[in-house]
């Protein structure tokens, strides 16, 4: 039995998969933000009882709990809420302020009062050591053992919980970092070395990545230690930001690699579902209460090594996700110049949208959907929470008055404002989807849009229309997709080594250097339990034209030079085959594939969705008020077809189809919508 567990703000999701029987089941527990382990342990305990009960008098063996794949929300929160360890930073003399100076730019051009995020290691815990290595790894100034001994004493005296070490050019010669690491670890200090975490050039990004690792390590250690204690004999695996998983033991050493595990799980789950539905190019769209995450999959989940978390640079491979501060809880207001704005302020869960009836008086995107009849008031969260339509209407009417709107023909003032709020929210999200597609050189029209956030189903088809996307996919149980993705994730380990060689270096020489990474990757993925037959190695090389500041990554093969020119042509529209090259980094991705959980499947039947029919409701379209049918998503079967305008209510999301949109339920119970023309 394998279990995927994702801790969200409201719920902790559990997805169980039995590889023997192929069965898949999901359940949720309320999250326990004060101690996230509580919900996890409670959920696992419940599972234990259930298995006890199932064992029955006959004593049939139920599948044992073999493996748990888990996110690392604790590390993420420690970083974002700045509740990590008291962290020190050690670097080369002359560069103590490396973290504080960063790249010297400001994040907001026109805000005279904005500040950069403060470094995770405070100035009084940033230390220098006299030493210097040049770019070829030659020692210019050796490390002084006496100075190092004094540093160990100072760190101990300062009550430091975790230390990050990043020396200039340590990727070219790690010996000084290793000496420091040995001394600190001998003194019992938890230590992260940049040459271990990320042996790649560009000191600010390498240092930042190493410091994040040091900052979250103690928190992650305590948390995983506690889980491991409670569930001995179970293999714990941790989802990484690169879309793969690693063993808990490895994760504890390299916490920075799992900082974005939740969204990574979502992206992997989204791609797996889309692929099963026959789509390999997909825009994954996760619209939640306060923000929306979007990512693009082109034959696979895409990673970037130019990420940023909480305003701090990280250079380890991350799923390429773009986030905007617009969601169901985003507040609509009129600004000084008379424009209607949606967000970035959010009503959050408390007080929440006006319709939650918890004292929120400001209209949100959710209120607008309710006022337009697109969100059935009596069926929110499976009917567990009644929505106050009158409160939404009042809030939207006040907004309309502030904006001096006049009611559109046949509509109330509140409905007129609500249409505007939806349009503006969609404009925000359209812009986000363009960032991950157009800005990365893709035409959104070549992709399907997969919506899996709670608020996304109400907006997905309109957004698709605006972007020229022809297909929208809404999977069942969309809200547990992240936990599902963790189960679907392979074992993935990424390696990098800066080499900085002239492009004329013989391939055999590069291949020999790459072989060292390959041996390490093979051994470490095998140590994760992957059988050799299921391990694949993908050696890569970062190349650039001499003098350029940006590298491109291509597969490390004898033809890599031609591949580089071709890739440069494809991405940048020009190439200079005669220009000299620089070989910047060698990379390796080592993958141990795991058996994918199978999705529930049934053969398509009759298109008539009568069994799911819940009645008709008035709904406002841009063209006016119409009566539209309402369907129960849980009752839909493969083959069922629904034409818009219509609403389909699931337990965790509602899908709105406009006139012209045609939905069909595929054999995996996904709602697949052929998006109508504008």
């Amino acid at each position, binding site marked *: 039995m394998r279990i995927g567990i994702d801790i969200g703000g409201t719920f902790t999701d559990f997805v169980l998969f039995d590889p023997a029987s192929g069965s898949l089941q999901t359940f949720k527990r309320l999250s326990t933000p004060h101690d996230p382990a509580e919900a996890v342990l409670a959920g696992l305990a419940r599972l234990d009882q259930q298995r006890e009960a199932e064992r029955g008098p006959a004593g049939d063996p139920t599948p044992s709990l073999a493996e748990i794949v888990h996110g690392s929300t604790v590390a993420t929160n420690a970083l974002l809420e700045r509740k990590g360890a008291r962290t020190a930073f050690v670097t080369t003399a002359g560069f103590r302020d490396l973290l504080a*100076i960063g790249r*010297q730019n400001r994040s907001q*051009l026109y805000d005279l*009062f904005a500040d950069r995020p403060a470094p995770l290691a405070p100035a009084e815990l940033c230390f220098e050591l006299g030493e210097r290595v040049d770019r*070829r790894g030659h020692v210019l100034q050796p490390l002084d053992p006496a100075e190092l001994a004094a540093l160990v004493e100072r760190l101990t005296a300062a009550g430091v919980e975790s230390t990050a070490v990043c020396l200039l050019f340590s990727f070219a010669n790690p010996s000084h970092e290793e000496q420091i690491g040995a001394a600190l670890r001998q003194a019992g200090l938890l230590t992260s070395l940049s040459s271990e975490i990320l042996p790649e050039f560009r000191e600010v990004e390498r240092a930042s990545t190493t410091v994040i690792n040091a900052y979250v390590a103690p928190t992650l250690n305590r948390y995983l230690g506690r889980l491991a204690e409670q569930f001995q004999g179970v293999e714990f695996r941790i989802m990484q930001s690169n879309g793969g998983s690693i063993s808990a033991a490895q994760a504890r050493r390299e916490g920075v690699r799992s900082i974005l595990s939740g969204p990574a799980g979502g992206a992997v789950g989204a791609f797996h579902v889309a692929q099963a539905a026959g789509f390999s190019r997909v825009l994954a769209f996760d619209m939640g209460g306060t923000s929306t995450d979007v990512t693009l999959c082109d034959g696979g989940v895409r990673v970037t090594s130019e990420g940023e978390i909480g305003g701090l640079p990280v250079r380890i491979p991350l799923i390429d996700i773009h986030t905007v501060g617009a969601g169901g809880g985003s507040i609509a207001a009129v600004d000084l110049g008379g424009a209607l704005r949606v967000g970035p302020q959010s009503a959050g869960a408390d007080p929440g949208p006006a319709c939650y009836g918890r004292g929120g008086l400001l209209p949100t995107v959710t209120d607008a959907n309710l006022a337009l009849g697109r969100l059935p008031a009596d069926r929110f969260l499976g009917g567990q929470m009644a929505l106050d339509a009158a409160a939404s209407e009042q809030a939207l009417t006040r907004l309309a008055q502030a904006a001096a*709107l006049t009611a559109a023909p046949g509509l109330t003032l509140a409905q007129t404002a609500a249409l505007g709020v939806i349009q503006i929210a969609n404009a925000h999200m359209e*812009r986000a989807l363009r960032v991950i597609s*157009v800005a990365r050189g893709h035409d959104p029209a070549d992709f399907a849009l997969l919506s899996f956030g709670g608020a996304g189903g109400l907006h997905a088809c309109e957004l698709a229309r605006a972007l020229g996307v022809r297909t929208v996919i809404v999977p069942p149980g969309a809200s547990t997709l992240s936990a599902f993705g963790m189960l679907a994730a392979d074992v993935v380990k990424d390696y990098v080594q800066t080499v900085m060689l002239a492009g004329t270096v013989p391939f055999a020489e590069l291949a020999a250097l790459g072989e060292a990474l390959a041996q390490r990757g093979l051994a470490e993925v095998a140590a994760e339990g992957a059988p050799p037959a299921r391990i694949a190695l993908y050696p890569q090389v970062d190349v650039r034209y001499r003098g350029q500041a940006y590298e491109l990554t291509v597969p490390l093969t004898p033809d890599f030079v031609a591949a580089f020119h071709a890739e440069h042509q494809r991405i940048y529209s020009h190439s200079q085959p005669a220009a000299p090259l*620089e070989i910047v980094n060698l990379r390796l991705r080592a993958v141990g594939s795991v058996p994918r959980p199978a999705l529930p499947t049934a053969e398509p039947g009759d298109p008539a969705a009568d069994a799911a029919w819940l009645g008709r409701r008035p709904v406002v379209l841009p063209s006016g008020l119409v009566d539209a049918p309402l369907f129960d998503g849980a009752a839909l079967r493969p083959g069922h077809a629904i034409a818009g305008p219509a609403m389909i209510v699931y337990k965790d999301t509602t899908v709105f189809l406009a006139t012209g949109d045609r939905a069909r339920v595929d054999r995996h119970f996904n709602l697949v919508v052929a998006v109508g023309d504008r």
Partner: protein
Amino acid sequence: MPPAPPDPIRLEVFKHLFASVAEEMGVVLRRTSYSPNIKERRDFSCALFDAAGQMIAQAAHIPVHLGAMPLSVQAAIDALTLGPGDVAILNDPYRGGTHLPDITLVTPIFVDAQPSGVAQNTDGAGERPFAFAACRAHHADVGGMSPGSMPIARELIQEGVIIPPLKLVEAGQINQGLLELLLANVRTPEERRGDLHAQLAANAKGAQRLGELAARYGLAEVQGAMQGLVDYAERMTRRLLAGLPDGVYRFADRLDDDGVDPQPAEIVVTIAIQGEEATVDFTGTAPQRRGSVNAVYAITLSATLYVFRCLLGEDAPTNSGCLRPLRVIAPVGTVVNARPPAPVAGGNVETSQRITDVLLGALAQAAPDRVPAASQGTMNNLTIGTSRAEPGAGDWDLAAGRPFAYYETIAGGMGGRPGKAGADAIHTHMTNTLNTPVEALEYAYPLRVQRYEIRRGSGGAGRWRGGDGVRRDIELLADAQVTLLTERRIFAPYGLAGGAPGQPGRNLLLRGGQEMELPGKTTLQAEAGDVISVQTPGGGGWGAPVD
């Protein structure tokens, strides 16, 4: 019939749509450009304009480009009859440019599929564009007397190749003669060719996306939204001005020197706020100089737009409407509105910062709780390079024997702010370019960074102290020419409300154990083993210090 003004909803929707187009232009430019200066330091801007040349939307990149872009478009409109398939190019500071390395491309946008919606010239001469896309990028070299084209010059022609508004592309065909002439006058022609093609691609993207919007919403709707957004920005600015107390606010500050003559140059501004409008008058400012600290009018306009834009708040629109309630008077022949043939390289990078300082100093009197003390007030331009191979390059293997040009601007202290200290080691006001990583620099050039740290104690004391500057020490591993174009080496960044001034910056040459003070603006032939130490100014403090 004029298009109906858009309602509050359309306004917001189109704000996102236009911003998205400008951002996509920026992405294309950054992706397809060749040079590190554009790709890594992001020294470029993209914007959209209406038929009259009013700026509608700008992708936020470099503030000094802000007010200058509309003047580039205006210069192209005035000088040329732009038809379908044409693209204008220019960099002449006296005809729509700011300084020579900043090359601007302007593309007219037509609606071809909707003949009925196309506005006609009154004389019936043909179609008129309904909008323009423009982008400006800082090219690492445009010729002139020194690598990097930021020399200590005495006349414009020494600073590089001058491009008046011309058609780089005519009816879809590149003007090869013009292109080859340009490339023959720069040091790195292939890099320039690549970057110009990237700029063409960016404008093409802008034209394509704006055309799509016109097809999706109709031309009248798009044009109505353009006017609506400019009016909206104007309303926001008027609200801002109405909220400031009426009055006349004067402030003066000085440039250290011009690199040729040692006298300081005073910049004076008088801001008269009356109701919803303001006059920004630079009368009293020093005459233009022999050295390159001369700013053209576009720079002065950019600085003015920047400071008012800052007071509007981060998410306000940035377009020509912001300038409508402002009257900017910059007397011709002064360092804030220079005439030919004055050199201008320092006007763009240094004087622009001082103009910002005086504007903020004046506005602090009207809005004391919203304006910080002076930030470092310079960009600390440092160029190290050779035009030919130099001996002594040692093991500098990857690039041995090649000429090189390393250009960098260095951060400094931000002024203390009412309510919080100024940030240390950060780029402020008119620039926001990134630094070159030490490890990237040592791979690329025969240079070694010995020290890169915060210059502690350089920020001015105050209730809210000024941010500290930076010290960057670079050792030369080969003989090379070093050019420094820096300010605030003599006159310190001011404090406000009783705060102390920040420390002025210093430029030092460390040679054989000796420390030699260098002038703020200088070119010298340095030797292998020399260390150039640039120590940047701290910001001024805000409020009297409390013990």
